[in-house]
């Protein structure tokens, strides 16, 4: 990963390692905020801002933060930036602030941000980490935009609040409800996997490395249960 050019650090987040469709992180805001395009895109941009800043700071502090307490440290840094974004939005974009509601504060526990801190920022230089944050953030925004477009156009007959003539009388309101969110999410993951398979690319094997809970999990069991399970399966086969 270190040998890759700066550009590929950004672009890998768009598709190849898309945080939502390939890494399957940040599912909760993905399902919750994609009922409308405006909410989804602003959620994506807010998360991108937090991601870039937190990646930068965590990368700068990566040699200072003791390994044992790194997760609380990351959370404090992320929460700080989320609070800044929240206050700025409350002051300058009150409508959007109302629209996003609790999900804005929940960016703090968004798996993408913690996951990138753990997976990338804690091991790479500040510039690379910022670029990674930008790429992942854009990937997240693209994913949210795609899902929200499908759900709003067919579920509510509108795009970004503007009604579409024919579709507004033929809405499938199931799609803007939560089961429809899961359905669209699953279908988009299937399509992305299909495209990846057609290109002969395999989804990156993540194992415990991408899991923010890996430290706790490993400490508790002394090993990675996921890998053990796979080994067991291989032996059985």
């Amino acid at each position, binding site marked *: 990963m270190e040998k890759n050019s700066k550009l590929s650090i950004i672009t890998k987040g768009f598709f190849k390692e898309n945080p939502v469709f390939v890494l399957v992180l940040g599912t909760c805001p993905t399902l919750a905020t994609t009922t409308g395009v405006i909410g989804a895109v602003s959620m994506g941009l807010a998360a991108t801002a937090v991601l870039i800043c937190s990646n930068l700071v965590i990368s700068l502090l990566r040699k200072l933060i003791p390994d044992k307490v790194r997760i609380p440290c990351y959370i404090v840094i992320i929460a700080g930036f989320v609070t800044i974004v929240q206050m700025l939005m409350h002051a300058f974009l009150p409508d959007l602030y109302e629209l996003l509601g609790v999900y804005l504060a929940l960016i703090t526990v968004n798996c993408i941000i913690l996951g990138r801190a753990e997976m990338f920022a804690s091991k790479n230089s500040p510039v690379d980490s910022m670029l990674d944050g930008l790429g992942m953030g854009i990937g997240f925004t693209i994913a949210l935009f795609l899902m929200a477009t499908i759900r709003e156009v067919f579920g509510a007959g509108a795009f970004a609040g503007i009604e579409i003539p024919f579709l507004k009388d033929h*809405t*499938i309101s199931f*799609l803007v409800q939560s089961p429809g969110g899961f*359905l669209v999410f699953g279908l988009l993951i299937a399509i992305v996997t299909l495209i990846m398979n057609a290109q002969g690319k395999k989804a990156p094997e993540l194992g415990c490395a991408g899991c923010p809970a890996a430290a706790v999990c490993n400490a508790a069991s002394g090993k990675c249960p996921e890998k053990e399970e796979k080994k067991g399966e291989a032996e059985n086969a």
Partner: protein
Amino acid sequence: MNRLNISVSPHFHAKATTQSIMLDVIIALLPTTIAGVWIYGYRSLAVIATGVGFAMISEMIFNAVAKKPRTVGDMSAVVTGLLLAISVHSNMPLWQVAVGAIFAIVIVKGVFGGIGQNFANPAITGRLLMAVSFGTMAKAAFPVADTVSKATPLAVLENSKMIVEGGSYILKNWKGEITGQTDLLSLFLGTRGGAIGESCTVALIIGGIYLIARKVITWHTPVSFILTVFVLSLIYTKDFNLALAYTMAGGVFIGAIFMATDYATTPYRPLGKVIFGVCCGVITVIIRFWGNLPEGVSFSILFMNLLTPYIDKWTSKKPFGGEKI
């Protein structure tokens, strides 16, 4: 030259094929379909044609796109489309029926691997999609003032209560306004508001008897389902006739006979089938009396579909000398 036929086991074959079984189901559905068309008018024919047509077309297109063998000839798409169409009201906008049929075939059946691989009954799931998406819209768009526009007696108002007044069953909402009226005979013959195929109880029973006689389905699920609904309604209302009315109103019969007996999504052993039927009945009654939905048949069957693998696991028999699965 080749007088000796050498073949691997099994040497005995049942003649039944997917096609013949599906044909039997279609024949069994005919009485209630005809009754529905007769009661609710020719609009229901358009609904049925849309449901069946879109189910078949989407199956053909999906198989072609996914490069799967063509399975539209096995008639299962026809059954799904027909069941879906007769489980909705005859005034349902046709595009909504089409959406339901496409969803049932492509998402519920196709994506999960085609016939026999679906995790839930496609017709039920399609119907629920329509109920969740279009429930209020269908009523608002078609304010017709005859039997057709009336919802299922149960669906008139969530909080309405069925009471007896001079031999007929009157639905009253929480304000005490009368919202619907029916009696046992019209519930039995189906001359009441409701979905196309769910109201004519007698036709559904004929279809069910045909299927049991042809050994397409066994009696376990339908009987245990219907009996459970009846017994629990009796306990709740403490009135024999009212319990009978509750059992015949709504979609208990069509659900129990045609939807809770789908091969792929219901248990395969008799004990499992009985457990399935009883649980369906219990959930239906709970949703009807204590839930905030008027009808619970579809949800109960969908829910039990999801539990079917576990029921199969609990009720599977240990083969002689074998290990318990």
